[in-house]
């Protein structure tokens, strides 16, 4: 009889009680997402984060794991979000040189773009009768997700919806940027890049880098500046306008 092989459900009960399951699930899903993304030649539609979210959400639904339980384990990954946000100072620092001589048009465009993002998304969602939680998720959705989620906590809306809307916005922006810029007659690479960085943060930025290095540099700058200014201005806007 001994050593006894534990029944499969005992192993299961043991595993689901430790953070390991949630951690492995999260990392494996992300890895799978990255593999699919590479396979499709980094097509924005095959976004690795969106794929990973789908995999994890499906998996915890199938194994009937409550979200709170999953998060308890995955919080170790979540914790690093703040550290990663601070580390964004490095790419922003490296991109600051691109500001030279163009700071005024870039700042004006950023403010106009940021205001448009909020007014259009929050406005449309409200007009079409979306509930309060959903409308709240639109405030910071054009800001890069790690900062957007910090802003969401400050303005007391759901960081989850904010993150999901931010990822979706990034994917849509990356797909649509070429047609929108052509239709608007915006030709200079730095202008096209900055626009996609402001509107569609990290996902738009990697799209911009894959098209043209100058577009990528300015997209990265647009994303960084929108992150910092958004974190300061969005809570003020919510306080005085909403």
């Amino acid at each position, binding site marked *: 009889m001994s050593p006894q092989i534990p029944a499969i459900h005992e192993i299961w009960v043991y595993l689901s009680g430790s953070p390991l399951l949630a951690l492995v699930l*999260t990392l494996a899903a992300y890895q799978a997402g990255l593999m699919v993304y590479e396979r499709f030649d980094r097509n924005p539609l095959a976004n690795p984060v969106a794929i990973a979210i789908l995999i994890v959400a499906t998996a915890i639904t199938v194994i009937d794991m409550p979200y709170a339980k999953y998060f308890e384990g995955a919080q170790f990954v979540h914790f690093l979000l703040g550290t990663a946000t601070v580390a964004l100072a490095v790419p922003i620092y490296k991109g600051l040189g691109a500001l030279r001589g163009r700071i005024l048009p870039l700042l004006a465009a950023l403010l106009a773009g940021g205001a448009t993002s909020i007014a259009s998304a929050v406005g449309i969602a409200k007009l079409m009768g979306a*509930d309060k939680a959903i409308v709240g998720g639109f405030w910071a959705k054009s800001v890069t997700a790690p900062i957007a989620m910090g802003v969401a906590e400050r303005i007391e809306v759901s960081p*989850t919806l904010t993150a999901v809307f931010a990822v979706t916005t990034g994917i849509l922006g990356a797909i649509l940027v070429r047609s929108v810029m052509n239709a608007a007659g915006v030709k200079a690479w730095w202008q096209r890049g*900055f*626009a996609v960085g402001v509107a569609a943060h990290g996902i738009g930025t990697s799209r911009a880098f894959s098209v043209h290095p100058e577009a990528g540099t300015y997209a990265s700058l647009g994303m960084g500046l929108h992150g910092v200014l958004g974190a300061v201005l969005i809570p003020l806007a919510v306080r005085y306008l909403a």
Partner: protein
Amino acid sequence: MIAGLVQILVFQGLGEIVAKFFLPLIPGPVIGLVLLLAWLQVRGSVPASVDLVATAFAQNLGLLFIPAAVGVVMFWPSIRSHAVAVVAALLVSVVATMAVTGLVLRALAGDEPE
């Protein structure tokens, strides 16, 4: 690697303290970002160890918001019943934001190529 991580964590800690006591509306990590940025400006270069950690984070940033984003399962019924509004808001907004940002730049700076 560890030296870089320690420096970044110190700035995160400073940011959290400033946020807690002076600027409660701004997320602590963003204040940490600005402080680190200021320090890099003063220093004039990025320490290699900090660069290493920052690059590792930047390359896998997406991984870090999966745990929170998976919470979307709890909002699923609500999103489904407002699906049209959600899709319309996301789609119109991203197109409008890109167009406005691009057009303002073009209006102020012209079509000058680099």
